[in-house]
């Protein structure tokens, strides 16, 4: 089941991922408590709006 979930996340682009999904696939932790936030929104809020637009689809 865990493998199935991980594989489904891997087919997502960074723009489609939430913070939690990015953390799970990259074995890292981002500095926010709102893990359901979209990754693009996270970078927008943390001072990298152009990176957010760059990874957006």
């Amino acid at each position: 089941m865990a493998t199935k979930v991980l594989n489904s996340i891997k087919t997502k682009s960074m723009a489609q991922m939430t913070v939690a999904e990015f953390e799970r696939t990259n074995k890292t932790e981002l500095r926010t408590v709102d893990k359901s936030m979209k990754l693009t929104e996270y970078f927008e809020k943390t001072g990298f709006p152009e990176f957010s637009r760059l990874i957006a689809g």
Partner: protein
Amino acid sequence: MSKSQFNFVSDTTLRSNIEQVFEHIARLLEIVKDPAYPIEAKSVFCKTIIIHTGSVVEALLYTLIESKYSDDNIKNYYSSWQLHPVTEFHSISPTHKVVAGHYKYIASKLGIQKLNLGQMCDFLKAKGDITPEIHKKLTKVRNLRNEQHLATQKKLKKYTIKDVNEVFKIAREVKEFVASKLH
């Protein structure tokens, strides 16, 4: 097919490489914001991000060139007629000489895969694929990326989040531009 934000890049290995670079940059951005790191360390991390982003820009331009042009197009563009060997008859001034020689067509050995970022930019500008304005922005990215060569630098430069965001902005413009040409 992976739901990539770079699906217009048909080479799947290149696409995976680009995505991997962005995941790496995302990790580096966390460090750049981390108050635990001194400003000098953050500057070097910013430089690393700029170099990686420049590589993505180069890959996007490569994709555009590969989709529109052949190795022969590149060879023809970089080949030229040259006087070789040259015999000097008379020197009029330090910047003006009367010479004679064999006028030969020197064929370039360059192909698409051997182009560096500067050559890609110049080629695309000459072919009218990019505007002088985009060429100017690309030159900025190229110059920043070339600062990885330490020996030519005259001072210790500090890189900031502002520099990083500026390069991201240019990379985003290049991405949108290349995507629009390939769709």
